[in-house]
């Protein structure tokens, strides 16, 4: 009984999942005539890629140092965690600035 129920639900979900991309096919074809607009889109993508790459690098350094510190001295875990979160967020906010600039270039289209 429960197996049949499961099969019915699974078929339903898969069927809807297959149908759903059809709804998303109505991509609006915009004509970006100006060269600056085209380049701004490319720039936004690359800026986000670089920001994510180097932000992740910085966060990884901090994270690895924190984990090492906790492994050496587990009793200091609470304090290290607090400082780690603070530092990670301050690094992350720089990436977020780039994300905002990219979003402005993608969606607001100032050019």
């Amino acid at each position, binding site marked *: 009984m429960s197996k049949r129920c499961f099969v019915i639900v699974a078929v339903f979900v898969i069927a809807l999942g297959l149908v*759903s991309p059809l709804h*998303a096919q*109505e991509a609006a074809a915009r004509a970006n005539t100006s060269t600056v607009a085209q380049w701004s889109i490319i720039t936004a993508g690359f800026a986000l890629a670089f920001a994510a790459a180097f932000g992740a690098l910085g966060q990884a350094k901090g994270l690895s140092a924190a984990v090492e510190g906790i492994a050496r001295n587990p009793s200091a875990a609470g304090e290290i965690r607090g400082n780690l979160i603070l530092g990670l*967020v*301050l690094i*992350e*906010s720089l990436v*977020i*600035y780039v994300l905002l600039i990219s*979003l402005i270039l993608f969606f607001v289209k100032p050019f």
Partner: protein
Amino acid sequence: MEKLEHDLWIVQAANAAFGPMARALLRALGRPAGPGNVIPDYLVMAAVIVLFWTVICLIVRRSLSVDNPGKLQVLIEDGVAAARGVLHDYVGHKGPRYLAIVATMFVFILTGNLMGLVPGLKSPTANINVTLGCALTVSVYYHLQGVKEQGIGPYLKHFAAPPGAPIFLAPIMLPIEIISHLSRVLSLSLRLFGNIFGEDLVILILFSIIPFLVPLPMMFLGLVTASLQAFIFVLLTTIYLGGAVATEHEHHEHGEMIAGEV
């Protein structure tokens, strides 16, 4: 993708109820409103948060008891104790004095962030106006508390010559300090806005591709981001408050903690 964003019924109801009044008020102020909804989404959502917590607190207040506390009362008491602990850690013994604004900020931002995951609601914090309002409130508040705690003269002197810096550096330190205090507002508001807006956008994009099960991991990530960003906003508020109200000798005790902030 714009087609996925439709008018929420709660916004429509609010506009049907209070729209004409707001329109008349705006016209009386000499700034007539354009077509469409007069009351924007984020204001309605902020009002929903206020109403929600007012109702919760009224319900809890009705059954407050010392001997036999209910589950909700224990939860809220734990939350207040945690907030007092954070304030005590970062501001010092006079920290719990600032509990009201810090805890209110946390509750508002946390509820606002989580609202984006509920169908039929929208995150008010995914709008730059709301986050900028929060950041400006915090900024004005900690400057006022600093002036109140230290007096206007010493507080301004603390800009020109931060503790540990020699006095002859004042011409360099003053512009740097002013810019850093202004950039705090920018970074507080943009961080919260960027995180929540980006999160909602990712969920929306995934939803527009395959609206089944695929957005779920992102929504789980949204839960983490929501609580983390609310906590970070409040933590930075607390650190700024601690930096503003610390007097001369306390700076030496907390010096390291306050040093590495942006």
